[in-house]
């Protein structure tokens, strides 16, 4: 009923409106959420990454475009010109000469050392990031443009670590001058865009940093506007108020495509996983957990909730792992009969299982929760959805019989991150010593074959213990105006550097 009218109006109002709200050289990005703090080692969540990526640069960067799908895993130089392994424990990085921070300070090895030292300082406020760097013994600065990163144990992933958003280089002098709090509010980096202003719950305004080592960034002004509501984001996109919006759900793809001005671009991102709290008698029985896993019809979920675009994985793996990926492993199975048996064997007596989920945090998170709960109910599990607004509460030590939905760590294309971090840092999994032991060993093994076989054992253990499960790998959808050339990258990275962003060019 609304549609014909809308199109009539649309035709009339279009030319006028799009001129009114968008200026060609500026880009406004409509975000579901914009965090008001900008320390790249603090805001490492998916809402912080796009900002860190615009303001800061890392030594090494992942070439996401390499595979043409935005999920590429090749490592390319960024602030580093080159790097090499000096020995099993040492990585030497040569810095790019002449790169500067936004305030004009040259970027030198002391800034790099400071970047990591500040995180590793046990008294610092970087508690959430520290574990990622715990293998770093020290950072040495033989000269202004050389940095040596010395690890405690051999580390196969240390180069990858340097692409991590938390590894963004911060200016030592400025940081020390203003301190932690002020830096978080007025950050200075060496990335393509420099910070201008932040209005809480409204927008963050950045402007091009002309001295950026890759050349002048393509947008004069880059604004991240917070529009929590998806409908409002789409409206703003349709209205020409923003050029790109994030967190589009699959359901809304047709709505954007029928606007006529915009299209939906996607990239595979990380996987949505379930976490079971094993520290209670019901969940402690692995047969119960295996039963839960087998009762989930992932293909149905993908088809129904993701238009089939969510990918059911061959176990807990990513193709980007390269040599470490085992395409032979079977996909997660759906077998409600077997599930029923396992549940029965576990001695489950109908205790209530709380599926605790945030209503908004994960795309389709709540929908999937409700769908999964009803699948469990079908095999006789008394499950219930509990919506909890507070993401941070997800890991308090309440010993409830509960399931939580999370996503895995897929920031780096390496099983040490995707599997081990996911199931040791935020998991509700008790008694995973064997699993951890295998993981620790794999993390310090430089030999690729041996690592491969270790991770196969890790996966076996994971599937058997079933501390949770992987639902599927999900795509990220962005609504983008037709005239904007831009490709989204995996893991929420939004790249507006030269080469990935242009207005009015080509398309």
């Amino acid at each position, binding site marked *: 009923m609304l549609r014909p009218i809308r199109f009539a109006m649309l035709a009339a109002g279009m030319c006028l409106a799009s001129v009114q709200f968008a200026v060609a050289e500026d880009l406004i990005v409509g975000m579901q959420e914009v965090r008001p703090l900008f320390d790249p080692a603090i805001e490492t969540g998916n809402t912080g990454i796009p900002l860190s990526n615009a303001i800061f640069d890392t030594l090494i960067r992942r070439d996401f475009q390499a595979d043409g799908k935005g999920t590429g895993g090749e490592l390319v130089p960024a602030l580093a010109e080159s790097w090499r392994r000096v020995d099993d424990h040492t990585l030497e990085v040569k810095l790019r000469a002449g790169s500067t921070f936004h305030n004009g300070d040259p970027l030198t090895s002391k800034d790099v050392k400071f970047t990591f030292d500040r995180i590793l300082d046990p008294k610092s406020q970087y508690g959430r990031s520290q574990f990622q760097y715990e293998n770093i013994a020290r950072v040495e600065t033989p000269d202004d443009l050389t940095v040596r990163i010395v690890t405690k144990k051999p580390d196969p992933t240390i180069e990858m670590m340097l692409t991590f958003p938390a590894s963004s280089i911060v200016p030592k002098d400025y940081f020390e001058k203003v301190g932690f*709090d002020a830096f978080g509010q007025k950050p200075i980096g060496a990335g393509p865009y420099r910070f201008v202003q932040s*209005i809480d*719950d409204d927008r963050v305004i950045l402007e091009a940093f002309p001295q950026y080592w890759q050349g002048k960034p393509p947008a004069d002004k880059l604004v991240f506007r917070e529009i929590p509501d998806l409908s*409002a984001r789409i*409206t*703003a996109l349709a209205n020409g108020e923003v050029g790109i919006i994030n967190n589009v759900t699959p359901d809304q793809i047709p709505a954007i495509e029928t606007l006529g001005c915009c299209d939906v671009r996607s990239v595979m991102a990380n996987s949505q996983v379930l976490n079971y709290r094993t520290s209670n008698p019901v969940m402690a029985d692995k047969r119960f957990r295996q039963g839960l896993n087998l009762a989930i019809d992932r293909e149905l979920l993908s088809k129904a909730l993701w238009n089939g675009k969510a990918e059911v994985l061959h176990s807990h793996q990513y193709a980007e792992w390269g040599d470490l990926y085992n395409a032979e492993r079977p996909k997660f199975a759906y077998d409600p009969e077997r599930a029923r048996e396992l549940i029965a064997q576990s001695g489950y007596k109908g205790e209530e299982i709380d599926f605790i989920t945030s209503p908004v945090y994960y795309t389709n998170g709540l929908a999937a929760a409700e769908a999964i709960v009803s699948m469990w109910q079908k095999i006789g599990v008394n499950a219930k959805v509990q919506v909890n607004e507070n993401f941070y509460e997800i890991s308090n030590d309440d010993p409830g019989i509960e399931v939580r939905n999370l996503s895995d760590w897929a920031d780096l294309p390496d099983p040490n991150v995707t599997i081990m971090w996911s199931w040791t840092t935020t998991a509700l999994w008790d008694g995973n010593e064997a699993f951890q032991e295998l993981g620790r060993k794999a993390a310090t093994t430089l030999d690729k074959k041996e690592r491969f076989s270790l991770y196969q054992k890790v996966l076996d253990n994971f599937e058997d213990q079933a501390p949770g499960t992987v639902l599927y790998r999900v795509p990220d959808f962005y609504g983008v105006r037709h005239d904007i050339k831009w490709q989204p990258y995996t893991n929420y990275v939004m790249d507006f550097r030269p080469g990935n962003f242009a207005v009015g060019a080509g398309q």
Partner: protein
Amino acid sequence: MTFVLQRSIRAALTLWIVVTVVFTATRMSGDPTYHILPPNTPEVKREVLRHQLGLDRPLVTQYVDYLSGLADGDFGHSFFSGRMVTEMYLERLPATLNLALPSLLLAILIGLPIGTIAAVKPNSPVDRGLMALTFVGQAVPNFVLGIVFILLFSLTLRLLPSGGTGSWPHYILPVLTLGIASIASISRLTRSSLLDVLGQDYIRFVRAKGLPPSKVIIKHALRNALLPVLTVIGLQVGTLIGGAVVVEVVFAWPGAGRLLVAAVMQRDFPMLQFGVLAVAATVIIANVFVDVGCGLLDPRIQARAS
């Protein structure tokens, strides 16, 4: 000016009750360290934080400290950002005021004339029409209104921005959304109050003196009819600030309301406490002004007070 003094003392007492209730309620609602500290923090660390926050001391001591802190302007730090809650709130307050004050102004500028026009010709088609409109304005929740406005003016007509701040067009929809209920209640009250006054004996006497209807209504009736309206305008300050919470969410408006919604979601009690206190203080102060205004409008009120 004992009248003003009297009102101020009453206001202070009211505020003290709010402070006490807020303090008691937050202290009764469990251990905030569970909300502040990250996952699986050992009990020792919690103990330390509890000590830092002063939660391990007797309740009375906490209360006294809390009050003396308030007296010094120390309303505590956010559990999350760690910043002074006053600072955070004051940063966001202008955006809310930018929304609430125009709405209030709009409500007065539109509500008063509508109510007056309706009251001058009671039960006429004009009156019925206007009252039906205000009725709808009162019955439709503002979040529904906001959404309808966005769909109509932003998505369909593409005339106005759908949310956020910036140029003046950004103000139109949220201010309208927030103001409509107030327009409705002010105009309805103006009408009934004016009708009431128009039935008074002195209005008949004024008419018997030969004064034209304009003078009868504007000079004689309206000034008296304004007393209850003024009281309601005072109450609207609270309603608007409360309504702004929802409207800010609908229009992604970066005001204090959303800060408080976030504080609710994060159980950021110091923030929430201060928000409630600040809003209560605003409303209470607004009401003192309203009372003083009533006193200026009607000499009897002051006489009664002193």
